[in-house]
């Protein structure tokens, strides 16, 4: 039976198990939208394509499934770019569908034409320009396979109008076979054994676990591995939730705004077991001074991540879950070797964490943003999904929220995209209708996709937005304070709108808290309200994120607060 390309595409998506997609229509997609109507696939219409991409990303990160986003040719497609780049940097599986002008018009500067394959080449794992209707089914199948396997990432399919209107038989291959794409899943057994030898030799071992642990669903294996060996664990931002924050072996996040104990432990260690992490510069600080005495074991599915930034002594290329399972299996046969050496290292580590835990001034009149996050962490159910924007809000969330389950923190780590958190929360909420989903936002970031209030209102999606309003682009302000003599050039948000009224204008409940004693009540009202809520909390404008490793410094060179002598009083300039 002959079908149109539009119908083939919809059928292909169904065969991939797609139940929801996020998209925005346009001229070349009219037929496709018609085929989607009554197709059984839920189509969500955000108010900006960037938000559609972040929503698909939030859906993917919270579920582990491939997210799907659709946009029309030209401006629709280019609006996706920040969302695609965000997903690429954090290895999020997405299939990105874009409309394209008809094949005979491509390259002729046709109306609403953009070379989206060219534009997105550096930020996609792979991409396809479909030139024949009969290729659609195979390409869709391949795209899902590539997006979701190996090191996951976004795959783009560009669909010219005439390919979508053309006719062909639906012909989905039985299996995917791509000559050049065979990700190595199983770790080399010899290398795995070397890891065990390294552990036996080490006196000061530490596990540095990243987002790869969550991507491969290896949290339980990691826990077992760490407990068996009694090795302390630190997480990257994207790794948070991959190891329970309330576990005695947990050190907290490491890196630029990481815990003192985490950075010191890494610095003094003689063995780093890097698992699904990539030695990002926000983690290592100055690489030349990073962990000077450590041997490095690196377990990662992506061979190019190994020895990219620092020298690795024992590389294990493979899926983290499989490798950890194998390590745990091999270890079971032997007596654990901890005992006194391990214990004295753990005692040593514990002293660092007691010396300088994450903290803030608790006796102030103003509301400290850290306090709000601490309270939210206590009041919210353990399986609540937290998304963040970018800036201080993100770092305080990483420091003060206790993530105990994987896929409960969704945050833009690699690209650091302001405007990510709110639409990502939307996507996560669609995927998890019964969970509490909260976007912890800054007053700057929320305005980058604030139009999505219309979307959560339209679908009565119970997403909660918690704005920590400091009337500044706080993180940039902090750097200006520390390194530019407190000259607050273009970081004051004096023109902030009345967020509560904005929410209400869209039909979303708005709450404002200005007094410390009302924080709990505000949070509880937000959590309990059966529908979307925007909660604005007016927080201390001058608060900074500490500790901090200044750019270019060794990760053990941390500063613990601003030199108050040098800082001017903040003034809101009207």
């Amino acid at each position, binding site marked *: 039976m002959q079908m149109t390309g539009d119908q083939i595409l919809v059928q292909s998506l169904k065969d991939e198990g797609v139940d929801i997609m996020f998209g925005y229509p346009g001229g070349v997609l009219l037929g496709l939208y018609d085929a989607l109507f009554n197709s059984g696939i839920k189509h969500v219409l955000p108010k900006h394509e960037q938000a559609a991409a972040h929503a698909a990303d939030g859906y993917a990160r919270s579920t582990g499934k491939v997210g799907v986003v659709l946009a029309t040719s030209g401006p629709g497609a280019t609006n996706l770019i920040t969302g695609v780049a965000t997903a690429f940097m954090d290895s999020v599986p997405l299939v990105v569908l874009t409309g394209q002008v008809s094949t005979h018009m491509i390259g002729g500067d046709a109306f609403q034409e953009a070379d989206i*394959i*060219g534009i997105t*080449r*550096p930020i996609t*794992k*792979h*991409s396809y*320009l479909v*030139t024949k209707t009969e290729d659609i089914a195979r390409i869709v199948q391949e795209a899902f396979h*590539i997006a979701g396997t190996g090191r996951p990432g976004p795959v783009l399919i560009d669909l010219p109008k005439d390919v979508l209107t053309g006719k062909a038989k639906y012909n989905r291959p039985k299996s995917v076979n*791509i*000559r*050049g*794409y065979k990700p190595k899943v199983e770790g080399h057994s010899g290398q795995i054994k070397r890891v065990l030898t390294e552990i036996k030799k080490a006196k000061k071992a530490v596990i540095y676990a990243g987002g790869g642990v969550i991507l491969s669903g290896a949290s339980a294996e990691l826990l077992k591995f760490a407990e068996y060996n009694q090795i302390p664990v630190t997480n990257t931002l994207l790794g948070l939730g991959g190891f329970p924050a309330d576990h005695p072996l947990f050190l907290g996040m490491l890196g630029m705004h990481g815990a003192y104990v985490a950075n010191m432990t890494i610095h003094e260690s003689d063995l780093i077991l890097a698992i699904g992490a990539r030695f990002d510069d926000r983690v290592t600080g100055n690489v030349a001074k990073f962990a000077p005495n450590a041997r490095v074991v690196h377990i990662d599915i*992506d*061979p*190019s991540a190994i*020895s*990219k930034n620092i020298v690795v002594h024992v590389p294990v290329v493979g899926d983290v879950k499989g490798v950890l399972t194998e390590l745990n299996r091999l270890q079971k046969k032997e007596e654990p070797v901890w005992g006194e050496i391990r214990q004295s290292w753990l005692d040593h580590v514990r002293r660092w964490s007691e010396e300088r835990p994450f903290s803030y001034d608790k006796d102030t009149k103003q509301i400290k943003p850290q306090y709000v996050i601490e309270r939210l962490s206590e009041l919210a159910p353990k399986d609540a999904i937290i998304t963040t924007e970018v800036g201080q809000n993100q770092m305080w969330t990483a420091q003060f929220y206790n993530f105990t389950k994987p896929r409960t923190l969704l945050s833009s780590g690699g690209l650091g995209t302001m405007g990510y958190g709110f639409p990502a929360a939307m996507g996560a909420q669609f995927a998890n209708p019964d969970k509490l989903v909260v976007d912890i936002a800054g007053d700057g970031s929320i305005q980058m996709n604030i139009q999505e209030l219309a979307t959560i209102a339209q679908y009565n999606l119970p997403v909660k937005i918690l704005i920590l309003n400091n009337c500044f682009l706080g993180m940039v302000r902090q750097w200006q304070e520390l390194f530019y003599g407190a000259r607050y050039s273009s970081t004051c948000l004096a023109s902030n709108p009345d967020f509560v009224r904005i929410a209400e204008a869209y039909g979303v409940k708005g709450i404002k808290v200005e007094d410390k004693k009302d924080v709990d009540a505000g949070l509880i009202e937000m959590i309990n309200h059966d529908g979307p809520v925007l909660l604005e909390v007016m927080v201390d404008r001058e608060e900074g994120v500490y500790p901090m490793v200044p750019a270019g410094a060794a990760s053990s060179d941390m500063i613990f607060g601003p030199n108050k002598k040098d800082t001017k009083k903040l003034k809101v300039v009207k």
Partner: protein
Amino acid sequence: MKHTISITVENRFGVLSRVVGLFSGRGFNIDSLSVGETIDPEISRITIVTRGDDRIIEQVTKQLHKLVDVIKVIDLTDLNFVDRELILIKVSAAEKAKAEILRINEIFRGKIVDVSPASYTFEVTGDEEKIEAFLKLVKPFGVKDVSRTGKVAISREM
């Protein structure tokens, strides 16, 4: 150090730009590049000559491997391989120099592919050393134009 990298790829639209984009996007330089079909028309071979220390070259090859349309990547540098380049070179030929130019060409076993009253165009193939030597010898006569293919390479059978 110079490396000659041989990349076997699917003969598909966009593959070359992906490979090249990978170099430019990371600030790696390409000294020369050549590309053409293999005996299997579905597969092309790209030969790239690039420079960098071991770490950079390792990154380059790993990143190339990651591309979905790349089937095989071999750094030929430490292996046994043969390489050739073809150049077309247009040399001014004053009447009294003609004999000398032709003699040099003969030694290098070049072909004359075009003649005009004032110039010869030669086709010369060979490895880098031979090409450079030829260029050096004809330079004094006045080289009007040169067009080079870039290196192609293939590994030797054991």
